[in-house]
């Protein structure tokens, strides 16, 4: 069976959930082989084995010192050497860029923001803010596919996860954009936005930089916190929590929108959520068109009551 390369997303040796989803999808196509860049592969190995990775190709942390290009060189080299059937990455902004460059190197096609994929590599997309479903395939070279987090449910299946070092000689073109500093803006104890099973977001309706009503509800649900652009632009919540077209795309089991009108750019980032609950004082707010359950009312009274009810039921 041909290998399917899966680029691992990890933070300090801890494998992200999306990688287990990708390994699950890879098993439909062929034999999953994880690609690990940087340290920590030893500690992440068990998780990869649990979801069926037969191999784990490891590459030096140095690849992270330059923007995107080195990882594309690594993936293209491995895809060639191993005659891979496909290359899968998660559909984060950076990984989509890696996918694009890898596909150029391989002379193949790239599909991004895929919400499902079959064993014969037919990919499903949700486009135009969720209004249309399309199917697409790659018809030249090794398909490179970026799959959205929370799209394919992860299912365990044992694999050997045998570590193997991958050598890559970086070209000069790959080292042109050097990362000289990494700035981490506050990162709380909450689950990460794109990975979370539940997301609670606040918009302009929150009214101030006091996001505690949103955070309290999120914490009662074990959810991540998101924000609309209006809230981010007002300086109420940090940039990396923005959900939408130019923010993160999330696809949780439950999305709760507090004081968010539901502009097309916001919907583009949350439309594929499985359940949507909205609280808004305007009965005409477009977010209600999407909501499975909506409450017309003031979020400052509805959300705390909801939080209290949830805590009671625990």
């Amino acid at each position, binding site marked *: 069976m041909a290998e399917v390369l899966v680029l691992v997303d990890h933070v300090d040796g801890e494998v992200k959930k999306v990688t287990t989803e990708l390994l699950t999808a890879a098993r439909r196509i062929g034999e999953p082989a994880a690609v690990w860049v940087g340290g920590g592969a030893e500690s992440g190995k068990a998780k990869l084995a649990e979801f069926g990775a037969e191999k784990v190709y490891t590459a030096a942390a140095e690849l992270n010192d330059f*923007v995107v*290009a080195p990882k594309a060189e690594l993936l293209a080299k491995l895809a060639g050497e191993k005659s891979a059937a496909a290359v899968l990455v998660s559909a984060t*902004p950076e990984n*989509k*860029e890696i*996918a*694009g460059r890898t*596909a*150029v190197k391989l002379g*193949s*096609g*790239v*599909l*991004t*923001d895929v919400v499902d994929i079959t064993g014969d590599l037919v990919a499903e997309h*949700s*486009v135009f803010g969720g*209004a*249309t479903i*399309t*199917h*697409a*395939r*790659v*018809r*030249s070279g090794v398909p490179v596919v970026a799959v959205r987090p929370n799209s394919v449910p992860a299912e365990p299946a044992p694999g050997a996860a045998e570590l193997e070092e991958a050598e890559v000689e970086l070209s000069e*073109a790959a080292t*042109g*954009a*050097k*990362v000289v*500093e*990494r*700035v*981490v*803006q506050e990162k709380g104890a909450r689950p990460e936005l794109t990975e979370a099973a*539940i997301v609670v977001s606040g918009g302009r309706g929150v009214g101030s930089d006091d996001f505690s009503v949103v955070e309290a509800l999120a914490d009662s649900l074990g959810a991540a916190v998101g924000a609309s*652009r209006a809230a981010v632009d007002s300086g109420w919540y940090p940039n*990396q929590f923005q959900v939408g*077209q*130019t923010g993160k795309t999330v696809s949780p089991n*439950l999305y709760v929108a507090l004081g968010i009108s539901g502009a097309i750019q916001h919907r*583009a980032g949350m439309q594929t959520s499985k*359940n*949507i*609950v909205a*609280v808004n004082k305007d009965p005409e707010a477009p977010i209600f068109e999407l909501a*499975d*359950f*909506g409450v*017309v*009312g*003031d979020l400052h009274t*509805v*959300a705390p*009551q*909801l939080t209290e*009810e*949830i805590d009671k*039921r625990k």
Partner: protein
Amino acid sequence: MNIVVLVKQVPDTATERKLSSDDNTLDRAASDGVINELDEYAIEEALLLKEKHGGEVTVLTMGPDQATDSIRKALSMGADKAVHLVDDALHGSDALQTAYALSKALGTVEFDLVVLGSESTDARTGVVGAALAEYLGLPQLTLAGKVDVDGSAIRIQRATDYGYDVVEAQLPAVVSVIEKINEPRYPSFKLIMQAKKKPVEKLSTADAGIDTAQVGVADAGTETTDFAPAPPRAAGTVVKDEGDGGAKAAEFLAEKKFV
């Protein structure tokens, strides 16, 4: 410093967007064309850099004849001239083919910097900037929330999952911008009038040296095989808060087993 800004015309997100059943590509006649929102931020950034460092700003657009609307808009914001890559052979090109074609068209212009949007509202692939850097063999400075140029050195803040990376490179380079970077200006009446006289050069695939076997829907590396309207979401329940809105929402969540 000479800057080329890549501007794409996209269907207005406020109107209904459709795919054409002939070849499953975007039906550009079905909705009004507007400039891709993020490209206005790219134009603004190019103009700010020009104001600081001098030089010329050239708009480069690949698209059908109607795309001249977006070119005029870009010129009326203050860009100096435009190149319009237009050829039937380009119809239905996917993101990588677009990047290839744009890289060829860039070969006809002198530049120190290419600035583009990080994503378009229609394709939403977000790969053009990266693929373009790959084709051109130039440093990739994408997802920039801040750009500083000092002589031949350029430094950006690249948006990441956790905050941002500071990235440095030497010009020439490819920069893509996120909307946090600036606030695009409105064209003044004077600039709108001037824009009508600014030069727009039309470029065919032959002029740009584009291999037509590598562009267009027939040769795309990807193929949309079918499309259909998304199944409508089952109509939801909307209740008015009468002091029990939160409790009712909790009931819904309990039914769905979230609590």
